[in-house]
């Protein structure tokens, strides 16, 4: 067995160092008067501190912005003398991918940004408000409330086009490095509600790779 011995000078020098370490480390319960990590606002257009391979805020913003601008250059959607009536909600937007996402985030942002930018070139029908609207219409016709100040119509608005879409993905994992890769494809189509033809299509695709995938909720 080999024994290591310190020279006398070195041992003497170590004594105060050890004492100082003991004092600093075992000083008992004390208030640690330092600020915690503050909450920070991040730009939704950037990846930010937490980023993985799924659909994230910057993808939602970029995707909906691209679709909005593309729709507004389509003659059948934004170039008609009589603005078409359009339904944009998530009733026909299917998430078949391995990403966790509330598809309302896509359709809500798309509809709101498009409604603001279209400025009358398209008319948006809120089919998810149909029950609410019918309730008020019935109350008006039953005399429970008066007829309001705008007008009366025979029925609620019928739509010319409705958005449908699909989110799909393809995952791959490197067994050695545990790097995960995901190719995500999001399709959007505007369907003619009389003929069933597709008058506009949009595609957004991306592939992301990350070693430690984050948890999406």
């Amino acid at each position, binding site marked *: 067995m080999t024994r290591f011995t310190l020279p006398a000078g070195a041992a003497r020098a170590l004594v105060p160092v050890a004492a100082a370490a003991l004092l600093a480390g075992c000083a008992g319960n004390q208030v640690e008067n330092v600020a915690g990590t503050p909450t920070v606002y991040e730009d939704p*257009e*950037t990846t930010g501190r937490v980023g993985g391979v799924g659909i994230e805020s*910057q993808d939602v*913003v*970029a995707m909906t*912005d*691209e679709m*909005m*601008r*593309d729709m*507004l*250059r*389509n*003659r059948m959607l*934004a*170039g008609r003398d009589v603005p078409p009536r359009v339904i944009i909600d998530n009733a026909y937007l299917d998430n078949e991918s391995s990403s966790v996402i509330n598809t309302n985030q896509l359709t809500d942002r798309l509809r709101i*940004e498009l409604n*603001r*930018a*279209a400025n009358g*070139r398209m008319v948006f029908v809120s089919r998810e408000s149909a029950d609410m609207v019918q309730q008020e219409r019935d109350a008006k016709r039953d005399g429970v409330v008066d007829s309001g100040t705008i007008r009366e119509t025979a029925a609620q608005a019928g739509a010319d086009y409705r958005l449908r879409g699909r989110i799909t993905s393809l995952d791959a994992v490197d067994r050695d490095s545990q790097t995960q890769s995901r190719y995500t494809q999001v399709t959007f189509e505007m369907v003619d509600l009389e003929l069933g033809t597709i008058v506009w299509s949009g595609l957004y695709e*991306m592939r992301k790779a990350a070693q430690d995938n984050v948890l999406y909720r």
Partner: protein
Amino acid sequence: MRIIRKTAAVVTALLLVVGCQGLPSDSERLTERTEPVEYNSVVFTDYNLQRSWSDGLLGEGGRYRLSVERHGQRRTETGTTEVFAVIRNHTDADYTLEARTHFVDRDGVPTDADAVWKRFTASANSLTAYREYSTSDQPLQYRVEVRELR
């Protein structure tokens, strides 16, 4: 005397090497930092991609990895504005880039939807095209900003 000559030669060589490397991308003396904003233009907001200076050790200079081959605009069939920029990658590496377009009216007032970064890849030693469309059908000017995705 010989020692002084040798030292002077070494210092001169060092200065030349330093001078040839040019100004770094975080230098405060880059021309792009203070040049006036011009519309109907494409600029690199990431000075690693392209930068120039006028007061370097050897006078004017510049460094570039990417350049803009051409850019322009035209009207779409609904009256909105289509802007395009053709980017040339001069390096042996692929670059993942982001670009956004600010649209302003003739008076320079921002009138369109907020500019959003759009991602695309410039392959090594190749050309790639970036396109953006306005939402407004009014005549517009544009300013495209390009940076590397980080």
